[in-house]
């Protein structure tokens, strides 16, 4: 019974924790401008994160090694350092965006400028990262994140023309009449948001934090192969809601309030209240994940003690880095920079950093020194290789598309 409960809890928290500020903003923007025509990218992205998260989780369970440990071993100190700098910058950008997202969610409730809320959010995030148990952070915020399922209810209530939806699912439908360069740019951004590197840093480090063993492989796979795709349904529901409300009016999504507005239209005030809780949980949870991921990456590159599975004083350098990152993120946000703009930039830079994260995972997942009998089979290798090619294409295309479209302005 305890085992089934663990599986259920893991799946539910995986669903609730799947979406972060990058998904919320990008999905809504894509729905408003491209309707359902980029759905295939979301599906490809969900497939990719499932393939690589399963490998990273398997490595963590069998060899007790997290992703960044492997990056330096397999790429060497020089390329590993390059990867570290890139990953830290992207994860920090995402951390800034998530803290800004929490402040924006609270602004929806309190009507106080998000800039004034940011310092309080930063202190709250840091206190949670310092004092709260790892499993409590994951479970409480993951379960609260299930509130975002209200997007699915809202989509149903909005009652879009399903024949039109099916028509828009065709990648070439382009219902918003956008240029193909802009279409490709948002495709890369969606892919980057779905496969952002911090997700595997956090997932694999979480496995080490929770002391996964070979016995936990089944639960881990259930989280990945059931939880992540169901979490992806929330992403699709956000796209659908934005497509139903904004696409016919030609309105672009530029604020977090606009992301949640279709829920108010479809479900009313109660729906709006639920979606704000969902925004808070998703962004606060992701802020904790990204804050920890900054510490994980640095500690795993240099090899010093990390994690919440030891007392904070035993991992003092790790906690000092997390504190520093939180202060830095708050410092950037109180300058008045728009968190939505930071989010847009972070998802594109995520796409650029993807290959250097995923290649070492694929290689180690084949290494019998680490995985013994649990190393990749032919299916995992074939999928890993296909996704590696996609990841490289997205990475190479990101910057030229960003310049050509003036960050998606068209």
């Amino acid at each position, binding site marked *: 019974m305890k085992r089934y409960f663990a599986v259920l809890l893991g799946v539910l928290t995986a669903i609730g924790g799947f979406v972060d500020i990058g998904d919320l903003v990008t999905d809504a923007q894509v729905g408003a401008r491209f309707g359902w025509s980029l759905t295939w990218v979301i599906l490809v992205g969900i497939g990719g994160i499932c393939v690589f998260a399963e490998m990273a989780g398997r490595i963590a369970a069998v060899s007790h*090694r997290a992703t960044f440990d492997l990056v330096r071993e397999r790429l060497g100190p020089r*390329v590993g350092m390059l990867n570290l700098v890139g990953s830290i910058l992207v994860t920090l950008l995402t951390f800034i965006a998530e803290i800004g997202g929490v402040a924006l969610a609270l602004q929806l409730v309190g009507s106080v400028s998000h800039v004034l809320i940011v310092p309080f959010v930063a202190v709250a995030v840091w206190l949670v990262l310092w004092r709260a148990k790892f499993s409590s952070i994951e479970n409480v915020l993951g379960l609260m994140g299930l509130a975002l399922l209200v997007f699915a209810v809202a989509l149903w209530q909005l009652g879009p023309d399903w024949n039109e939806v099916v028509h828009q699912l065709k990648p070439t439908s382009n219902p918003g009449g956008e240029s193909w360069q802009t279409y490709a740019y948002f495709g890369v951004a969606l892919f980057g948001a779905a496969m952002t590197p911090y997700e595997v840093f956090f997932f694999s480090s979480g496995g080490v934090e929770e002391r996964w063993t070979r016995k936990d492989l089944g639960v881990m796979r259930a989280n990945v192969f059931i939880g992540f795709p169901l979490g992806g349904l929330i992403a699709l529901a956000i796209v659908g809601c934005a497509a139903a409300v904004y696409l016919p009016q030609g309105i672009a999504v530029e604020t977090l309030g606009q992301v949640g507005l279709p829920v108010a239209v479809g479900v009313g005030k109660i729906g709006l209240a639920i979606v704000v809780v969902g925004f808070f949980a998703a962004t606060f949870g992701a802020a904790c994940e990204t804050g920890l991921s900054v510490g994980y990456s640095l500690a795993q590159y240099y090899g*010093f003690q990390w994690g919440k599975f030891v007392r904070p004083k*035993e991992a003092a350098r790790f906690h000092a880095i997390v504190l520093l990152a939180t202060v830095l993120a708050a410092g950037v946000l109180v300058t008045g920079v728009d968190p939505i703009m930071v989010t847009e930039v972070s998802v594109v830079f995520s796409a650029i950093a993807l290959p250097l994260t995923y290649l070492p995972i694929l290689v180690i997942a084949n290494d019998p020194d680490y995985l013994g009998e649990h190393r990749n089979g032919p299916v995992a290798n074939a999928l890993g290789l296909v996704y590696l090619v996609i990841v490289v294409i997205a990475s190479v295309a990101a910057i030229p598309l960003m310049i050509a479209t003036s960050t998606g302005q068209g």
Partner: protein
Amino acid sequence: MPDYDMGLHLLDRQIVGADDRLVAKVDDVELTRGDDGSLTPTAILVGAPALLPRMGDRMGGWLMRMFRLTREAAADRDLPLLIGMDLVDRVESEVRLTVPGHGRLQRMDRVRADDRTRCRVGQILGTPVVCDRLPRRSKVLDLRMLGTPGGAGPHRVTSLIVGPDRPGALLGYDRRSEPGPAPVAAFVQWLHRHARVVELGRGVEIDLDAGEVRIGPEASLLPLRG
């Protein structure tokens, strides 16, 4: 792990104490030259003074200068921390110590740092190789070892892996025939098709002062795989 390659299996691995505490990464390894010319690993080196020189001649030198500037008054700023190789219990996907990690790292003393019989693996890796039978711009890619850290019996460098310096050497596909994503493995093997193993001994001279390894006609070059 019967025999192993220094770069592939030991450098950059996580060091874990007997108390399960994470200690550091293997940033470099100290080798000591015996009277017979053999090279024996004697200590694991840790910290920025061990890691930064491995970032390449130009970049590593610049980073080390910057690192010294952060505390110019310190006389030991360029000296790494070390753990004796005798404290290593075993090497798996991590390096396990026989003792708890807490307080185990000690600063290398100046006499030891200046000892001409000692050198670092990082100094040998990447050293240009002069040999008529190898492509130009060949370098030392790795050190092949006899024995294991913490194991019984001799533990020393037996041969050098030499060849053109191309990416992917640390992925391991150039020297194993294990299953993997076949196209990646085939590509890495093709990149390293000119890499060879040369046994230390007659005809092989490691001259760190001149910054080169000379391989004479009497030394035999063996293929890396098989």
